[in-house]
């Protein structure tokens, strides 16, 4: 069986477990609503300053959603050591990695799709630059967060003593992506300058780190 069909099987399994019923989508919708409500209590949306940092606000909210998702990525595979069942099978490691990364991507993307309209309403946002670039930035930025997050989450379940290194490792690596996401979003919202160089940077980042993760994941998985 090809990697891609296995990826699909694993992804389908994860999504099924996550979304046994409509409950999950309801709970995500509710979660998105809560995040936006908490934000509007914390940053009075009528204040001019809040609107100026909306690009940052939105990404913080998304980052939070991503962290919730990433934290549980591997938990399910560790209970009952199911990961061992994967490791003794002939299935390629990368299809597991891709499935997990896609799963997280879908989770975060759905949340973003739910939260964005709420933010727009509450903060009265309107893009002055080219609006069509926004979904591109969102997709590229989310993938950047998710691909590294999935990889490092896998590393952290394997290494015991070196764990203190993890945030320090992940942190500098993520900075260019974060910078690009926020700057691109602000550029599009304000329309004052072009978001293109930032989008290019994000795309490069995605390509580089996706490749890196795919090359190294088997090593990480097979370390006991």
């Amino acid at each position, binding site marked *: *069986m090809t990697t891609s*069909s*296995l990826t699909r*099987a*694993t992804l389908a*399994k994860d999504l*099924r*477990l996550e979304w046994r019923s409509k409950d999950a989508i309801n709970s995500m919708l509710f979660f998105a609503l809560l995040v936006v409500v908490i934000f509007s209590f914390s940053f009075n949306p009528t204040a001019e300053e809040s609107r100026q940092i909306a690009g940052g606000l939105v990404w913080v909210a998304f980052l939070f959603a991503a962290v919730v998702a990433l934290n549980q990525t591997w938990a*399910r595979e560790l*209970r*009952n*050591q*199911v990961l*061992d*069942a*994967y*490791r*003794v*099978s*002939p*299935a390629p490691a990368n299809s597991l990695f891709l499935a997990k990364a896609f799963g997280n991507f879908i989770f975060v993307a759905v949340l973003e799709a739910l939260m964005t309209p709420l933010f727009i309403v509450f903060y009265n946002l309107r893009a002055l630059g080219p609006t069509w670039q926004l979904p591109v930035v969102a997709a590229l930025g989310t993938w950047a967060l998710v691909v590294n997050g999935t990889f490092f989450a896998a590393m952290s379940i394997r290494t015991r003593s070196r764990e203190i290194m993890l945030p320090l490792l992940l942190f500098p690596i993520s900075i260019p992506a974060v910078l690009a996401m926020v700057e691109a979003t602000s550029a599009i919202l304000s329309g004052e300058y072009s978001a293109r160089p930032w989008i290019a940077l994000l795309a490069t980042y995605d390509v580089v780190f996706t490749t890196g993760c795919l090359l190294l994941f088997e090593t990480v998985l097979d370390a*006991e």
Partner: protein
Amino acid sequence: MPPASHTESAANVAPIVVVTDLIKQFGRFAALRGVSASFDAGRLYAILGDNGAGKTTLLRSLAGLTRPNRGTVSMLGTSDLRSVCHQVGYMAHPSLLYDEMSGMENLRYFARLYSIEDNERCASVIRAVALDPELARPVGQYSQGMRQRMSLARALLNDPKILLLDEPFSNVDVRSAREMVGLLAKMRDAGKTIFVVTHQAALLEGAADEFVWMEAGKIVSRTSSLQPVEAR
């Protein structure tokens, strides 16, 4: 050990599993301290020994889950265990199953890992371990023994040539354990090589071809019947 001049079939001539001088160290403690042995195809081996003797570690090394510090493992004539893993079935202490899915859903997922598209295969291994494929309850709500059987079903899924079973009978009721032994014996007769780690050696009396005794990380003896050593 039987003499090598045992010319039934080509597969039987060379030993199917060979380990040489296996050493596995966890920090300052060596769980395997130089295990060398060879095992022939089509036989049922019972691996016995006290707690902490290194049985699980040995089995995990055979499955390729643990990388020994020294020594080599070769299975089916190759030491690249990854390349023969679709011919090996492994059952561990923990269930290796998703608690949230039903038995059938679990097996359907694992079947895909082995490129098995056939749902009937899943249903038939579940029936082989005397469970009901229709049971919709998630595995997390199974009783301990039911989970154990489902775990065996998972190991049988890819119809492996070599089966590595870590305490398959623990928590299983006596009647079912006997049925399981019968199943294993039948599989052995069909040409499979089976390794069973267990503390209930009596169950395997008559069924096992050879009893392999481990102690403190070494194989200390291999006997073809249970009596002589149990009396120690």
